[in-house]
């Protein structure tokens, strides 16, 4: 899930702020029906209380049965599982499990709620979000995901330590963990919203229930549990979405033709173009692709999945499943948002409330339950990998690495479980005050971009610790100034996103410093077809 793009398109600015506003407005309306958008709770109240309870029971039963059932089965099957089994399933996962897990890891609140709202302004061009994530998955399966698997590392910072030494490892683990934790708080909030939309309970209560299921998801059997539950969730999720696509036309007041006529007759035919207008492509599409690919391509949460694969070939093959599954999800949320705008009573609710209102108000109860279970599955899977990633980083890259603690894998796994619990509790608590956190998560995303580039340089060009430090800290310093000082306005660049700044600086500082400073051989230096050479790189570093 990527949250940090801004674009200029059509008549206004589409930004992360709109998604934030969307979540806040729904949150307020649930807490206080007199405020904000009232669609979700209002529609819930229109339903019979018994029906609502029935839907909720079905959804909860499904989540507990899949998560609890698979978790307990795996625990009984692997009573003597090692600690490494918890974090990377002993590098044993197959193509379907890796493919599905990778697809669902990057399929979260933006795909569920954000895209519905984006389609209000962009129409079908909201599919650019999907394009960005498919390219991201392909990049991971072709490059970074394979590399971390080949080097047998457990975390991204461990890979950076191999290139640049321990200082860079600590710096990158802090940035990576903070970024993923920011996303975790957002997922917790959105899980709360799904429960709120079903029951009318507060988002806080919904987030707590979601947090408990999310903890079960990951704590019972670790990465293998996440993988297998994801397989079940994917079948249920895509079943629900396909059925929705097939039957939704029949539940719309004027069918699909009515939706098409609305856009054509109101002079918004451009909204039915899948790539949008040239302005949309330049102002929204390309920036979204850049931000998503370079920020998430080196993120622990995605790469932890590929580390659990049986082999590099499994990582590569899983690209087909992951790319197609992740990309297709957005088709359904785009069409829901697009249809909602064409119905006057839903259009009155605005972009933030119309999509969820269409689901709750127009679809039959059985399909509402199915869709809610599907959306929860998507959110919970992202929650699970997002809580696993920072906990692993904290234990392996900070606790064990910094304090030089020589612990067996089993003991580390226990510490990771404790950290998972602590982080999940904090994330649920913090999610009650989402606005600042989302802005923080947005800001933190741009911190990952220099990590991506120093990794590329270290693997294929040169391992210079000083150059890596200059690139990282230089970029981060400017990113900080860009966020908290009037520097952008002084330079006349107010509209320029942090991601662009960090991308440009990472490349400029990285290339110049690597050219100017001495360094060791790259980790994947290849000479005359002979792959090598870790030892030489180590010697040069030392």
């Amino acid at each position: 899930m990527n949250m940090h793009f801004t674009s200029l398109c059509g008549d206004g600015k589409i930004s992360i702020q709109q998604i934030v506003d969307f979540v806040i407005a729904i949150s307020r309306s649930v807490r206080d029906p007199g405020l904000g958008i009232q669609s979700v709770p209002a529609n819930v109240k229109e339903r019979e209380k018994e029906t609502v309870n029935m839907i909720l029971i079905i959804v909860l039963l499904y989540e507990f049965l899949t998560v609890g059932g698979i978790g307990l089965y795996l625990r009984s099957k692997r009573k003597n599982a090692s600690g490494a089994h918890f974090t990377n399933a002993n590098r044993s996962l197959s193509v379907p499990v890796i493919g599905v897990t990778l697809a669902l890891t990057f399929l979260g609140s933006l795909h569920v709620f954000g895209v519905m709202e984006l389609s209000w302004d962009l129409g079908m061009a909201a599919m650019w979000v999907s394009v960005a994530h498919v390219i991201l998955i392909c990049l991971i399966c072709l490059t970074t995901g394979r590399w971390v698997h080949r080097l047998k590392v457990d975390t991204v910072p461990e890979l950076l330590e191999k290139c640049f030494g321990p200082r860079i490892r600590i710096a990158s683990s802090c940035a990576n963990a903070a970024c993923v934790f920011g996303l975790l708080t957002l997922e917790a909030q959105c899980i709360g919203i799904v429960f709120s939309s079903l029951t009318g309970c507060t988002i806080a209560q919904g987030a707590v229930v979601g947090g408990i299921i999310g903890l079960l998801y990951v704590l019972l059997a670790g990465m293998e549990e996440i993988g297998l539950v994801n397989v079940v969730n994917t079948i249920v999720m895509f079943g629900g979405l396909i059925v929705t696509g097939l039957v939704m036309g029949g539940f719309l007041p004027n069918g699909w033709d009515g939706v098409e006529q609305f856009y054509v007759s109101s002079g918004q035919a451009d909204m039915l173009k899948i790539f949008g207008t040239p302005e949309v492509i330049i102002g929204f599409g390309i920036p979204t692709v850049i931000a998503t690919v370079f920020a998430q391509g080196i993120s622990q949460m995605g790469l932890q999945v590929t580390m659990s694969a049986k082999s590099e070939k499994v990582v590569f093959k899983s690209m087909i499943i992951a790319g197609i599954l992740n990309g297709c999800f957005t088709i359904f949320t785009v069409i829901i948002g697009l249809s909602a705008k064409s119905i006057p009573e839903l259009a009155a609710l605005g972009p933030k409330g119309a999509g969820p209102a269409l689901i709750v108000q127009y679809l039959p109860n059985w399909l509402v339950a199915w869709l809610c279970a599907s959306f929860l599955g998507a959110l919970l899977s992202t929650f699970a990998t997002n809580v696993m990633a920072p906990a692993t980083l904290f234990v392996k890259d900070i606790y064990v690495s910094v304090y030089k603690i020589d612990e067996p894998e089993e003991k580390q796994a226990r510490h990771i479980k404790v950290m998972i619990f602590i982080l999940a509790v904090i994330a649920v608590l913090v999610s009650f005050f989402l606005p600042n956190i989302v802005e923080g998560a947005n800001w933190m995303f741009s911190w990952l971009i220099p990590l991506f580039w120093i990794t590329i340089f270290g693997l294929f060009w040169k391992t210079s610790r000083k150059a890596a430090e200059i690139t990282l800290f230089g970029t981060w310093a400017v990113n900080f100034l860009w966020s908290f000082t009037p520097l952008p306005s002084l330079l006349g660049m107010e509209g320029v996103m942090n991601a662009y700044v960090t991308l440009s600086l990472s490349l400029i500082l990285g290339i110049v410093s690597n050219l100017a400073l001495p360094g060791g051989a790259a980790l994947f230096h290849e000479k005359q077809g002979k792959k090598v050479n870790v030892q030489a790189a180590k010697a040069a570093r030392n």
Partner: protein
Amino acid sequence: MLFTTFLLKSLTMICSIVGVSCLIGLKFYKNMSDE
């Protein structure tokens, strides 16, 4: 009709990206480890 057209266009777009990536990946397939 609207949904079917959109679905087909989207699937074509997604499959094209994955397909091109597969072709790129196949060039390096021999060098990928099996374990």
